Each structure stands twice: as structure tokens, then as C-alpha cells.
């Protein structure tokens, strides 16, 4: 953190002219700051991943297994057979460059290996050598190369400088998805024991305790009790929060960041207040206390293993359907993978709002509804008593989280919710929102401090768009529907648009909700005085 350059210096250092040496001849920089800390041996051992050991990416020797080249080759072959996406994406890129300046890491760094096309070429070059006839015969002419230790190191550096946000895929004429390529590359790296702790530790925690942060069940209950206390202090009303209880209609699952980290906790308070307000018959679970799935950043098998808890717990507790909180990649997993991996969940019912009677046909199969779909429906049916003026001190904009925006198309629901509870709402420039949204640069497990400069560079497009509405509209709050965003956008906003704070959408809802029997509120959920109550 200490040697992070000032924002304007960093901006000036960006240069889009590629180096004079060809990319295959430009050595990879493995000096500290360019990588996340490697996974601790004990975490790999616990999870049964290969090659647990102490190692340092700055060292020349990465202590790879003896036959690591064969391992990568065989792993590659296996995945080409299992995923059409990988096979097609390795073959059909024409290097038109439409993706080149779409990646936030490229925009902020100018490093050509951060152009999605070249990031994928790091892998394609090996694919050509190993799996195509032309590549075997005409090496350099076809852009193919042998898998060496340097190539593997390059993979580690650059596939952990991709947040799998899929913005490039949107612009690709063939829909080539760098997230798929990155996921495969990371799986291959895992086979050799090359991985990062900031992913593996949450995975291991999530497996054992139910959530990333390793919060044990009794601690989880304590935290919820604290929040109930805070809600009582703010509203004068004591609410009841069922945990691990059987026989309720709905189980609510949200990322654990909402339970633990500021400012996610205010969003969590918003959920709890909403549920109390409408009298929802629900329970939380400590066993399935994590919506976010770091398995997605590890391997398909690990993603399945972690995700399976949601259905398992829904079945054990005997609920009818699942309500999910504000989280980015959790919803990518739920939308694109959950039912395929762990369904069909026929023990559940098609979700139906007990308050409005709306049947969520779009969640007919997974039986899982997004909280902003649920709340938007409540608002449309006038089921909430709201006082938007309690958010008058907030001038907000909305950050579309990459995963819901590009995997689901969840865009208007959160906006509908926001506009019902906040008077001052301004969109960021159109090239930076909705499906064209820019990543927080800390997604896919890169939310770690040792790569802060990389994160701030990657955060430039988002930060810059935020600065625009800050300057033009006086925006002082960036709302979002992702727990990783709530963690990573905070330093990002502080760096690129100081003065802007970050919140979840349901924090704004919580502020505006008029609970039955509550006292007149003096503060918002952050205990800041409400407008007109400052004295």
C-alpha cells in the first residue's frame, strides 16, 4: 500500500503503445506486487488439491511437480473434450482486436498482455503447439510455442489479472469469453499446485464453516444479534431473526460479506428490516451462510461442492424456496450452474411471493429468487411503507455488478428498487453501465491488498465514471448489489473519487422503510443523523 502512486501519477503512467519486443519474447515480471500470495499448504491439504508446499512466486524455483508439463498437457486435453466453449474459443479467434481496449486491466495498465485477445493467446499458443497440426509443424509462423516454466509463470500472473467479468465477451463478434479461458487456465494451474491464498482460504473456510470468513455458527448468531440491537437502537423496534429453524417457507442466503464487513452489514440490516416489515416466514442458516462461491474461481468440481450446500440446507430445513441476497458471482453460479450441477431441486416449489402472490416464473427451475426481484415486486404492489426523504442526504448512482449484468441481465430490478427509496439518482456514463459495466477489479478472488496497484489500475474505468457523476451531479454514494463490490469499491472510490461512499441497495431500502410501531428515526442505518435531525 505504501508505494501506491498518487491517482494522477498512476493515470499519467498509462501508455497504450506496446513494447518493441514481441509478446513471446517479452519476459514476464514476477516481482512482488504483480501477484497474489500463494495458497498455504495446509489449505490445499485440507481441500485435497495437488502439490501443497511453501513457495514464493518471486523465486526462480516454483517447486512444481516433476512431470508438470505432462500434467498440464493431459489436463488441457481433458478439458478440450469436456468443454465445447474452450475448444471453439481456442480455434476461432481472428484477432480482430475488438476486445483489446474493453478490459479494465488493459485500460488502466496499458500492458498488452491484459488485452483479452492476448491473454487468451497465452493459452492458445500452447494449444496450437500441443493440439494442432499446423502448430506442430510451423511453430512461430502460426503463433505457437512450447509450454515452458516461463509460460506457466506468465499464465499465473495474467490469469490472476483477469476478474472473469466477461466484458470482452460482450464485444467479441464470436462471443469468445475470456472468463471461460481464464477458468480453464486456472484449473490447469491448480493441477500443478499454482494457486493463490485469497481464493483457497475462503474456499476452505466455506467448506468447513459455511462461509468465507470462517465465522462459526455461534459467532454468526452473535453478529446477527448485534445487528438486531442496532436496528432496535435506530428504530426502537426489536425484531426476531430465525436461524437454522425448520418449518419456515423461505431460506434466505446472502454472501457472508454482508454479515461481517462494513458496509455490507448495513445492507444485511436492510434485509432483516424488510423481512420483518412484510412478515416473511423465513430462516437464515449458519451451515449455508454463504452465497458467494469461490469455487467458481477454483474448479468446476469445487464450485459444485460449495454450491450444493444451498439445496442441501433448503431440503433439510424443509423450506419451499430460496431467496438470495445481493451478490455478484453468487448469481452467476445460481443462474448458469446451480440447477445443472446440483438440481433439479424437486423438493422445492416454484417461488411465489407470499405477500403479493406473484409467481416467479423466471426461477421456475432453480427455485431461487434475487432479492431485488422480490423487493421490486413488493414495491410495484405497494406493499411497503416507505419514506424516501430519509435518504435525502444520499445522492446515489448504481454500479451494475459484472456477473448479474452479463450472465443474467439483472439491470432494471435494482434500479426500480433504488428509485422507490431515493430521490437523487444519477446514472454513470452509458458506456460504463448495464451490460457494458466495468468491473471493480477485485472480483474472481483478487480482492487482496498485495496487488493494490493492479486493482487501482483495473479500477480506473469504474472510478473514472464515478468521478464524472461526482463532479457533475454531486454523487456521494455508489450503490451496488454485490458483496465483493462493497468490499473492493471502497478503496477504489477512495482512490479515484474520494468522498464517495459505497452501499448495498437494501441499505437504502432499510433507511426508507417505515416499520410498524417504530419510533421516529434520528439516524440512518450507519447512525449518521438524518437530514434535518443533525442538531
Amino acid at each position, binding site marked *: 500500500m505504501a508505494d501506491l502512486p498518487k491517482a494522477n501519477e498512476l493515470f499519467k503512467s498509462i501508455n497504450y503503445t506496446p513494447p518493441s519486443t514481441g509478446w513471446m519474447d517479452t519476459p514476464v515480471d514476477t516481482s512482488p506486487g504483480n501477484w497474489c500470495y500463494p495458497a498455504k499448504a495446509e489449505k490445499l491439504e485440507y481441500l485435497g488439491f495437488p502439490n501443497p508446499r511453501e513457495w514464493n512466486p518471486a523465486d526462480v524455483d516454483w517447486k512444481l511437480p516433476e512431470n508438470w508439463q505432462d500434467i498440464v498437457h493431459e489436463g488441457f486435453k481433458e478439458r478440450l473434450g*469436456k468443454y465445447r466453449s474452450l475448444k471453439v474459443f481456442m480455434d476461432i479467434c481472428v484477432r480482430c482486436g475488438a476486445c483489446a481496449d474493453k478490459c479494465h486491466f488493459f485500460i488502466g495498465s496499458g500492458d498488452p498482455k491484459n488485452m483479452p485477445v492476448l491473454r487468451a493467446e497465452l493459452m492458445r499458443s500452447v494449444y496450437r503447439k500441443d493440439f494442432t497440426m499446423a502448430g506442430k509443424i510451423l511453430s512461430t509462423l502460426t503463433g505457437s510455442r512450447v509450454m515452458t516454466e516461463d509460460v506457466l509463470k506468465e499464465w499465473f500472473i495474467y490469469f490472476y489479472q483477469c476478474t472473469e467479468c466477461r466484458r470482452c465477451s460482450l464485444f467479441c463478434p464470436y462471443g469468445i469469453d475470456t472468463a471461460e479461458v481464464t477458468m480453464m487456465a486456472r484449473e490447469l494451474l491448480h493441477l500443478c499446485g499454482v494457486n493463490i491464498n485469497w481464493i483457497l482460504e475462503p474456499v476452505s473456510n466455506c467448506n468447513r464453516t459455511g462461509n468465507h470468513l470462517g465465522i462459526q455458527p455461534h459467532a454468526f448468531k452473535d453478529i446477527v444479534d448485534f445487528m438486531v440491537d442496532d436496528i432496535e437502537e435506530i428504530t426502537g423496534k426489536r425484531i426476531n431473526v430465525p436461524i437454522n429453524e425448520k418449518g419456515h417457507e423461505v431460506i434466505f442466503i446472502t454472501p457472508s460479506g454482508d454479515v461481517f464487513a462494513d458496509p455490507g452489514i448495513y445492507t444485511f440490516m436492510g434485509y432483516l428490516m424488510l423481512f420483518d416489515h412484510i412478515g416473511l416466514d423465513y430462516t437464515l442458516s449458519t451451515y449455508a451462510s454463504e452465497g458467494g462461491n469461490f469455487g467458481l474461481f477454483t474448479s468446476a468440481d469445487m464450485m459444485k461442492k460449495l454450491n450444493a450446500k444451498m439445496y*442441501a440446507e433448503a431440503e433439510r430445513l424443509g423450506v419451499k424456496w430460496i431467496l438470495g441476497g445481493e451478490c455478484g458471482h453468487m448469481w452467476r453460479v445460481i443462474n448458469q450452474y446451480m440447477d445443472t450441477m446440483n438440481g433439479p431441486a424437486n423438493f422445492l416449489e416454484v417461488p411465489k411471493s407470499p405477500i403479493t402472490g406473484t409467481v416467479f416464473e423466471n426461477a421456475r427451475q432453480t427455485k431461487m429468487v434475487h432479492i431485488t426481484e422480490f423487493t421490486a415486486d413488493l414495491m410495484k404492489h405497494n406493499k411497503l411503507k416507505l419514506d424516501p426523504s430519509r435518504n435525502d442526504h444520499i445522492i446515489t448512482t448504481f454500479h451494475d455488478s459484472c456477473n448479474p449484468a452479463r450472465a443474467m441481465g*439483472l439491470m432494471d430490478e435494482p434500479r426500480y428498487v433504488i428509485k422507490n427509496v431515493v430521490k437523487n439518482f444519477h446514472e454513470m456514463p452509458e458506456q460504463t453501465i448495464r451490460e457494458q459495466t466495468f468491473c471493480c477489479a477485485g472480483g474472481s478472488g483478487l480482492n487482496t491488498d498485495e496487488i493494490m496497484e493492479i486493482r487501482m489500475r483495473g479500477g480506473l474505468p469504474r472510478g473514472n465514471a464515478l468521478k464524472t457523476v461526482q463532479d457533475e451531479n454531486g454523487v456521494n454514494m455508489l450503490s451496488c448489489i454485490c458483496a465483493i463490490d462493497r468490499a473492493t469499491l471502497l478503496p477504489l472510490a477512495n482512490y479515484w473519487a474520494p468522498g464517495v461512499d459505497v452501499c448495498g441497495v437494501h441499505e437504502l431500502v432499510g433507511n426508507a422503510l417505515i416499520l410498524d410501531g417504530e419510533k421516529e428515526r434520528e439516524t440512518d442505518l450507519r447512525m449518521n443523523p438524518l437530514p434535518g435531525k443533525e442538531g
Partner: protein
Amino acid sequence: MNALYSLVLVFALVLIALFGAGAAHMTGLFGTLLPYVAIAVFLVGFASRIIGWAKSPVPFSIPTTGGQQKSLDFIKHDRFDNPVTPGQTFIRMVLEICCFRSLFRNTSVALKDGRVTYSSAKWLWGFSLLFHYSFLLIVIRHMRLFFEPVPVCIGFVEMIDGIMQIGVPRLYMSDLLILVGLGFLLGRRLRDPKLRYISLVTDYFPLLLIIGIALSGIYMRYFAHVDIIALKKLTMGLVTLSPVIPEGVSVVFFVHLFLVCTLLVYFPFSKLMHAGGVFLSPTRNMPNDTRIKHHENPWNDPSIKPHSYADYEDDFREPMIEAGLPVEKES
């Protein structure tokens, strides 16, 4: 450097044809055998590539969406960028393949006055469309060489293509436009430092090869005025499997034909297969309906289970009881 290699390669091909069909009089080889081999390689190669891709399953449904999902009634669903039905998905694919819709979104980034700016950059979209459609028109026009009598629709395409009625023989617009399109695509690769950096020999070679084909064709038609009757005899001979090499076929034609044969042979082994691959791209050709309908993964491993609740409770039973959380087993 890669561009230069490719240029040398294309020149070499021209020389081979000039020498082979011209000086060495191997017209049988260049006019009959090579075309048959090329067509066979193209067809078998193309089919086997498609089959090769199709053999790998699509374990997960991973469309990249470009608009609002289908959810609540009062929220407007973006049907063609975020399709949920096969029909909507079909239209998305048609827009993608016929109109290059994703490329239409293209923007370019610049750093100006301390800000990142995005400007519309539809040049690539426009010129690629120009190139691809000109190519299509030219291919359709050439079909007159392989039919007797010439179908009306081919005659119609020719008529439209030459509708400007400039010069004798009449100028086909597609002949000019394809060169404009190709020239832009090549110029862009050479001019933009980012693109030059990622461009391989295999990026320049097909562009230069197609430019070679177009130029030799144009030369034949507008400058050398080749004997079209003789050419048609040759092509009809190929189609009817009774190949002949008539008198009076110019050596330029053999150069043109040899370059086309090279393109056909090269096609299945190269990035040109994007023509087939675009249909198989899972991020575009799938509906976004995985919350609505079950999608099957053929290799989904049922033995992968979560860390069970029972084990979890065994780990934390005492503190759970102490905290007043319900448990399945009391001790």
C-alpha cells in the same frame, strides 16, 4: 515482419502457378487435379472441424447477455440480447451472423485530460460487413460458371452488382468494395500498434491471399479480357466430372485458380473457421433460461457432495447449543 512473411508467401504462390501452369505447361495439374483436391480437403476439413467441436459437450449454459433479463411483468425484457426462447435465440444468432451485432457495439478508448473517454468505433463493423458481403456476392456471381443454363437468381445478383453500368465489361461494385474492405482490414492491422502487436502470419496471410485472388480476378476481367467461353468449358468439365483443359485459357486464370485452391485447402486449418465456429459459440447460441429450464451436463459427477450438515454439526454442536441454535442431535 509477419506481414512481410505473408506477402512473400503469397508471391511465392503466384510464382508457382505462373511457372507451373505457364512455363512448365502443367495445366492438367493446376486446372483439374488441384481443384478437385482442394474442394475435397475443404469439404472434409470443414466438416471434420465442425464435428470435432460438436463432439465436446456444452456442460453449462453460459450465454453472455446484453440486456434486461425476463423477470417481472412490469420490467421490459430485452428479447434479442437476452433471449429465453429458442425463437428469440435464433433471432439473436441471425442478427449476430448477418449483421455482426456484437461488433456494432465497438467503442474505442482514449485518455484525455485526465479522463478515460469512449467513442463509437463502428469502422471495423462497417468494413467487415463490406468485405464479407462483397465476398458473398462474388461467390454467388461465380456460380454462373458452374451451371448451364445459369439460374435466374444468379443472373439477378450479377445484374444488381453491375447496376451502375460503368465501363465494358461492366464494372461489378463488389470487385471494388471487396478491395476497399480488405484494404481497410489490412491497413488497420498495420497501422494500429496494438493490432500489429497481436497479429500473426496467420492473420496477414489470408488477407493477402484474398487480395491476390481479387486482383487476379479483376485483372482477368477488366484488363486481360480472358476467353470466358473457354473458362466456362473448363469449369463445366470440372462440375460434370469430365475435366477438359480447353485451348486459350490464359495463365492468369491458373494463377487465380491456384490461389483459390490454396484458400480452400487453408480454410479448415485456420482461423477462417470462424465462419463455422460462430454458430457453435455457447455464449451466443444459448437462451438465458437456466433458472427456468433444466440444462444437462453429461459429465456431472454425482459423487461430489457438500461437506455434510451432520459433519458440520459434529464440529460445532456444543457452541451451537450454547448459543441457542437448534441442533439435530442433542449430544
